[in-house]
């Protein structure tokens, strides 16, 4: 049973190694003493016996090592020995170790963070059953401007009735919120809500954590009101009490029965939603059956065996049939399209995230090159030590292994620190961009840690192997000699370091140009003119609950009274109301219109414009110029709206060459309106051009419970927020105010993506510039040290200090310039890849390229200045004496 013996030996060798070593010593000593005894017995003297015994025995040290080499777990012993040795050598140069570990930590940390984000957001499947069969259904707008348009309720109903490709189809709406109240101790709060048809959860394959889902009976207009709570809301506001099921809460002063609580991880359609109500109960039947009002999100689960293309063609057929049966209605879609649900959620942020991932990859490469550079310098300083070790019998492989072990130790420490850094970065990202999709899915898990470990090994190999290339050319003898500053010894290393540095600088230039382009893009975006005043303008959103403000007169009274009191506040220059959104805060919706005095538009041309409802003082309040005509005259009665104001773009497109004032428009259900004024254009978001817009009188509409107050002040407008809220509380105690932002902040929100991307890329570029500068400094110092005697000779022979300075500067700048050229060339290619993220900026923007090149040359010159200056100040006697 040999294997038993071997096992026993292995265990013994693992745990009793010390004992075994002592025993080996005893054993060898015993042998030698026996031989000595035999020698003495055969007549030799004591000393002679000893010498003869040792001679015939061999080298005990070598034999002991050979015997130990046969022991099992020898590889482990060598490994531990290498690690111990590596730790000791590194701790002798703590400065070098600290810098290398820091550089590695930056590179690895950034990569792990972004890898986690990309994986969690883009690659991880949605947490639903068989999520790859879940599809988002779209309509294609008839003028082909919006191929992925929201669905109309009536069209969805037809899809549900006729389609055979889906095992389940459901409809939902992500917009909406309620004023949640109901308990005496707690203040009312505005919560975001979504509306689900009863089969949304079955389609997704999700069950509520508590209670039950909506049934088909709950999803009817005549049903009792029911609501589902989010886990977070349940924990926070209701104390996590399981008896919440079947209790009543007040939403907008109306009682709803809580029928269930969603699981903690559920965040559909987005993480801000905390309440779900049945859509067919909540929305009026006219809207749910309309075929031309695209307000809803439709999802479906493909039947097994059905492909996307089959489903699309079937849906398009159904839509087309509906379109052809309603040719008089130009807003009925002609076709349909579908996308996998995951892609519909994250498709927009794919490119920016991948660009950021590539940037971190560049940063890691730069970090590795930097550490390799540092290791080469270190190896040069330890040439003598390596020579001694080689002379003592160290094989090349063993020396390489120790060198790699040091590199691995640096990487491992850097990796551990990097993982900690990544945790911090991820938390920061989730905190600042909690509006981004799938933020709740981001977790640092085992895969990310394994990725970090893989990066550690890769970086260690990369840095270690590259820096060990130079060890080949060393002649042991010359290295051991005292006067070993022969110039030839440094050339190989110098060239290697210069090459590494050029690569570093090239990558840095690529990052810098990317960052510069994004920064310019962001600046352009941020400075775009929305068309109204943004300084010292405040906005506040109101949602008047149906229960208390059901009549138009009540609403009008509230808004008018509030306006009057706000206008009388000290510091308020102007105020007004607008609905649904202020400029820069989103599309806000559109309506079709027709101009009876014009000829009918050709088939396929849709007439629609953005719709807004305002009070007469809004335009003056927010600083939109009135170009022609006048604002609403304030005599409009609720229910009898007759006036409309159009934007300049509207006038240019539909009334070019004629005065629109006094002309008629049919809109909002073919009601006639008279155009009484033309106002300046506004953008609905910073990155888009101004669209034609129509403004209606807020007071005169039938159902406008949501409005936004805008207030302009001469000084700091944020001081007015509290006084205005107090006024509101006096007028209606239970009415919450939400969305209190200055217009500057609104613009900031709409440029948030660009700002975030530009900031991150600038941080990476800045870091890599710093690393490149430090690397440049190190390389030139090294070159100067190598050529000290040469410089001494030059100075002694009469070279001026400035000449030496210029010589050294050029030597140092050469790799930087080579790197600059490489980087510019590479940027020509990579800049095109980020074209989709740019606004108002060409990928090959000459200004950005020039600035980056100039900055790099400046930084390089500064980095080279110190060593070059030191070289020019060399005392030739000292330099020559070192020879």
């Amino acid at each position, binding site marked *: 049973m040999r294997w*038993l013996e071997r096992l026993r030996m292995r265990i013994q060798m693992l745990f009793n190694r010390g004992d075994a070593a002592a025993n080996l010593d005893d054993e060898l000593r*015993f042998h030698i003493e026996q031989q000595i005894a035999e020698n003495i017995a055969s007549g030799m003297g004591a000393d002679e016996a000893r010498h003869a015994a040792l001679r*015939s025995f061999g080298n005990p040290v070598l034999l002991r090592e050979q015997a130990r080499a046969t022991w099992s777990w020898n590889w482990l012993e060598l490994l531990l020995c290498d690690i111990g040795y590596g730790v000791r050598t590194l701790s002798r140069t703590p400065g070098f170790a600290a810098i290398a570990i820091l550089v590695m930590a930056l590179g690895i940390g950034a990569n792990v963070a972004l890898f986690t984000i990309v994986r969690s957001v883009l690659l991880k499947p949605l947490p639903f059953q068989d999520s790859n069969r879940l599809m988002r259904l779209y309509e294609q707008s008839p003028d082909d401007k919006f191929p992925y348009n929201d669905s109309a309720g009536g069209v969805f109903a037809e899809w549900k009735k006729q389609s055979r490709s889906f095992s389940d189809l459901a409809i939902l709406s992500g917009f909406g919120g309620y004023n949640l109240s109901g308990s005496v101790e707690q203040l009312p709060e505005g919560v975001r809500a979504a509306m689900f048809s009863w089969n949304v959860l079955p389609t997704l394959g999700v069950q509520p954590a508590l209670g039950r889902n909506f049934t088909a009976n709950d999803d009817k207009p005549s049903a009792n009101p029911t609501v589902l709570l989010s886990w977070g809301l349940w924990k926070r506001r209701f104390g996590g009490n399981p008896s919440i099921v079947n209790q009543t809460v007040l939403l907008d002063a109306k009682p709803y029965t809580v029928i269930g609580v969603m699981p903690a991880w559920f965040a559909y359609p987005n993480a801000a939603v905390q309440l779900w109500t049945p859509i067919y109960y909540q929305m009026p039947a006219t809207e749910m059956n309309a075929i031309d009002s695209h307000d809803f999100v439709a999802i479906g689960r493909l039947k097994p065996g059905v492909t996307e293309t089959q489903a699309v063609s079937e849906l398009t057929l159904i839509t087309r049939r509906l379109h052809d049966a309603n040719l008089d209605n130009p807003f009925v879609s002609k076709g349909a399209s579908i996308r996998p649900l995951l892609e519909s959620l994250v498709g927009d942020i794919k490119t920016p995230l991948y660009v950021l991932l590539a940037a971190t990859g560049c940063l890691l490469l730069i970090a590795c090159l930097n550490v390799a550079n540092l290791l080469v310098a270190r190896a040069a300083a330890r040439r003598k030590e390596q020579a001694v070790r080689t002379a003592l019998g160290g094989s090349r492989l063993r020396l390489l292994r120790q060198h790699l072990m040091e590199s691995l130790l640096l990487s491992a420490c850097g990796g551990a620190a990097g993982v900690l850094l990544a945790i911090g970065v991820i938390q920061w990202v989730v905190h600042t961009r909690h509006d981004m999709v799938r933020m709740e899915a981001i977790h640092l898990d085992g895969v990310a840690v394994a990725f970090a470990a893989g990066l550690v090994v890769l970086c260690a190999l990369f840095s270690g192997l590259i820096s060990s290339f130079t060890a080949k050319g060393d002649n042991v003898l010359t290295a051991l000699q005292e006067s070993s500053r022969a110039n030839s010894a440094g050339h190989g290393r110098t060239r290697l370091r210069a090459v590494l540095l050029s690569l570093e600088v090239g990558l840095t230039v690529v990052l810098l140009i990317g960052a510069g382009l994004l920064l310019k893009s962001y600046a352009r975006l941020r400075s775009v003119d929305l068309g109204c005043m943004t300084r010292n303008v405040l906005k506040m959103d109101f949602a008047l609950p149906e229960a208390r403000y059901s009549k138009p007169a009540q609403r009008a009274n509230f808004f008018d009274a509030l306006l009057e009191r706000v206008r009388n506040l000290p510091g308020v220059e102007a105020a007004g109301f607008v609905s649904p959104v202020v400029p820069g805060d989103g599309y806000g919706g559109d309506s079709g219109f027709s101009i009876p005095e014009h000829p009918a538009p050709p088939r396929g041309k849709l007439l629609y414009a953005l719709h807004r409802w305002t009070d007469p003082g809004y335009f003056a309040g927010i600083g939109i110029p009135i170009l022609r005509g006048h604002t609403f005259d304030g005599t409009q009665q609720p229910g009898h709206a007759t006036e409309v104001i159009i934007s300049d773009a509207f006038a240019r497109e539909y009334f070019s060459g004629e005065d629109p004032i006094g002309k008629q428009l049919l809109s909002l259900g073919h009601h006639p309106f008279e155009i009484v004024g033309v106002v300046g254009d506004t953008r609905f978001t910073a990155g888009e051009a101004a669209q034609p817009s129509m403004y209606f009188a807020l007071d005169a509409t039938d159902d406008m419970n949501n409005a936004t107050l805008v207030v302009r002040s001469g000084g700091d407008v944020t001081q007015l927020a509290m006084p205005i809220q107090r006024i509101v509380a006096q007028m209606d105690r239970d009415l919450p105010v939400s969305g209190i932002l200055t217009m500057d902040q609104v613009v900031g929100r709409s440029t948030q993506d660009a700002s975030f991307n530009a900031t991150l890329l600038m941080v990476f570029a800045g870091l890599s510039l710093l690393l490149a500068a430090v690397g440049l400094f190190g390389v030139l110092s090294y070159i100067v040290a190598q050529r000290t005697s040469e410089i001494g000779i030059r100075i002694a022979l009469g070279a001026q200090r400035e000449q030496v300075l210029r010589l050294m500067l050029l030597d140092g700048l050469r790799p930087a310039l080579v790197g600059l050229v490489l980087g510019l060339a590479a940027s020509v290619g990579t800049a095109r890849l980020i074209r989709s993220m740019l606004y108002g900026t060409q990928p090959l923007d000459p200004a950005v390229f020039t600035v980056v090149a100039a900055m790099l040359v400046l930084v390089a010159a500064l980095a080279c200045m110190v060593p070059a200056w030191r070289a020019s100040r060399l005392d030739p006697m000292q330099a020559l004496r070192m020879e």
Partner: protein
Amino acid sequence: MLILKTLLPEPMHGWAIGKRIQQLSGEVLQVQQGSLYPALHRLEQQGWIKAKWAESETGRQAKFYSLTAAGRKQLEAEPPTGAVCPRR
């Protein structure tokens, strides 16, 4: 192999094994005495021989090696060859 054959009759310590091998090879083999020990340790790690510390003839503790069952079987299987180091 030679070591295994040497240990066939009785357990021995390293010194005695060396002496016996010298005798068997007729004083022809003049290897370094110490090179026996790496071989002994390799055999022990592989389970052909096992070791025990016991009192030697001089009164000192010494490491005595003896064949294991597997080692014995190995000897019976292989034809005798004149090699100091085992095949494996």
